[in-house]
């Protein structure tokens, strides 16, 4: 509704703009710098990436090889393995951050004392760089001198010794660090959504004798459904493209156990300098991102109308 009146008003102002002709192209001039920057450093690299994915460097020359890079990639077991690792990493990350974020937001939304204080503290990990956060977690689980590892050895030995050096343990550490950092984001978004749910609806439901769980699942959740979907999409984009934490905690090891597709791209395209295959991985990741983005835009777009 408000958008409709706004655009009607915008038209009114357009007419009232003095100077008429002279400022006819003003909107275009205002947009131009941004569009040029985006074309040069976002759109062009993306197209360049698609081109590179069809080439291979032989003796310093770029040779067109068609879809050969993709064919070879899909027959490479370590790449398939990295896709599987990405799936495990992302799914766990999404489930944990979204559900815990919702839970924390519900508690924060009760608005007892210190709510603002808790929110700020819970948000701090998000402000810290991935590589710094990763370094801290790596230190906590350092096999011989790490504090958390030594506490595990003492109080919870069933979790395992030297977790950092086992494949399951290393993946768990990376996911724990990612959730630790990402929880801030989903908590804030959930809280923002919960605050738009009218208090009367919840109260009338509890007058009808709805229990807490009933109230959440049948009254609150339907109201904030679009935000939950947005959170799932944004957290999946985050986790599919996340590299910094893995780089700083495990470098993809041990034995490739924490090598996600994104990390595979970094290794093959940058460390090994194989531009063609690296670009092919980029294109595959890009397609996954585009699919998620279109879904995101359609939710955001629908809500606006």
């Amino acid at each position, binding site marked *: 509704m408000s958008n409709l009146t706004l655009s009607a008003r915008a038209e009114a102002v357009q007419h009232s703009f003095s100077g008429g002709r002279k400022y006819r192209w003003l909107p275009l001039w205002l947009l131009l710098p941004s569009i040029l920057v*985006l074309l040069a450093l976002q759109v062009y690299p993306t197209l360049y990436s698609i081109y590179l994915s069809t080439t291979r460097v032989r003796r310093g020359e770029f040779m067109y090889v068609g879809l050969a890079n993709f064919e070879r990639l899909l027959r490479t077991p370590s790449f398939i393995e990295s896709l599987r690792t990405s799936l495990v990493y992302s799914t766990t990350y999404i489930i944990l951050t979204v559900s815990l974020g919702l839970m924390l937001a519900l508690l924060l939304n009760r608005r007892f004392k210190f709510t603002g204080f808790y929110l700020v503290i819970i948000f701090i990990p998000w402000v810290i760089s991935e590589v710094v956060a990763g370094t801290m977690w790596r230190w906590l689980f350092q096999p011989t001198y790490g504090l958390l590892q030594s506490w595990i050895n003492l109080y919870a030995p069933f979790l395992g010794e030297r977790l950092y050096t086992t494949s399951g343990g290393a993946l768990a550490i990376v996911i724990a660090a990612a959730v630790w950092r990402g929880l801030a984001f989903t908590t804030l978004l959930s809280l923002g959504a919960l605050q738009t749910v009218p208090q009367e609806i919840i109260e009338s439901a509890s007058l009808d004798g709805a229990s807490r769980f009933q109230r959440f699942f049948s009254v609150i959740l339907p109201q904030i459904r679009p935000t939950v979907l947005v959170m799932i999409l944004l957290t999946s984009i985050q986790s599919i493209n996340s590299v910094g934490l893995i780089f700083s905690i495990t470098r993809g090891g041990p034995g490739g156990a924490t090598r996600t597709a994104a990390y595979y791209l970094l290794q093959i395209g940058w460390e090994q300098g194989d531009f063609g295959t690296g670009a092919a991985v980029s294109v595959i990741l890009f397609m996954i991102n585009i699919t998620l983005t279109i879904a*995101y835009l359609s939710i955001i777009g629908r809500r606006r109308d």
Partner: protein
Amino acid sequence: MVTSKLTRRFDQISTHLVLGLFALIAIFPIAYTLMTSFKSQDEVLTRPPTFFPPTWRFDGYNTVFNSDMTRFYLWNSLFNSTLSSTVVVTLASLASYTFSRYRFRGSRALELAILGLMMIPGLTNLVPLYRIASDLGVLRPQGLNANLFISAVYTAGGLPFAIWIIKSFFDSIPIELEEAALIDGCTPVQALIRVVIPLAAPGLMAAFLLMFVDTWNEFLAALVLLNGTARTVTVGLYDFQSSFEIAYHVWTAACIVIMLPVLILFVLLRKRFFEAMLQGALKG
């Protein structure tokens, strides 16, 4: 309402317990990092590890403050973050003004296309950007300044998000104010600079802040595009790995030095920060 006083009291206590636990989890790794940074090499390699340093020492900070971290990397990060955030907020203000106040054929599609670019991760552009950088001679020490180039890359990366949030701040400013300014004889450009921008200043500040923190923390592009003394804090952190593999007092001191500036910014301006993130992800 049938909620008794007792259940309310129970609710209050259990809420504080759970929130307190999560706050503790959030702060614990940082607190331990801070404690480690005040230990000596021997104390870092003590088994079993202790939480507090037995004696407070500054060996780690001494090493960090006499390294390339404070000679180069901090300044490079400051340069990149300031430059790209300033340019992003300037360009995005102009573009957002068009999207907020004008409708023309294709304007809606263009807006969505730019929002779509927001979702292209820096990661998938890495290989081509490396190629472009090496073609431009950015990677050679005597070539184009690497930090200028990477600031441009950050600008392009941050623009879509900034346009998105600044536009929603512009949308909330009543259009009558500009109309009045126009009637008083302002040109549209003057109306933007003298009326709209000052009113949207908190929103611009918020966008600047988010962009600054993101750039400060960025790792991947910096890893691929920067070499030697052109590196930033997040990449420079790894200097301490090669020479001090197990010297975690030095590593953690470096971590504290790197996170402190953005942490202070966040705590001081947290309201703006939250507002901008909510606008960016959910509204528009």
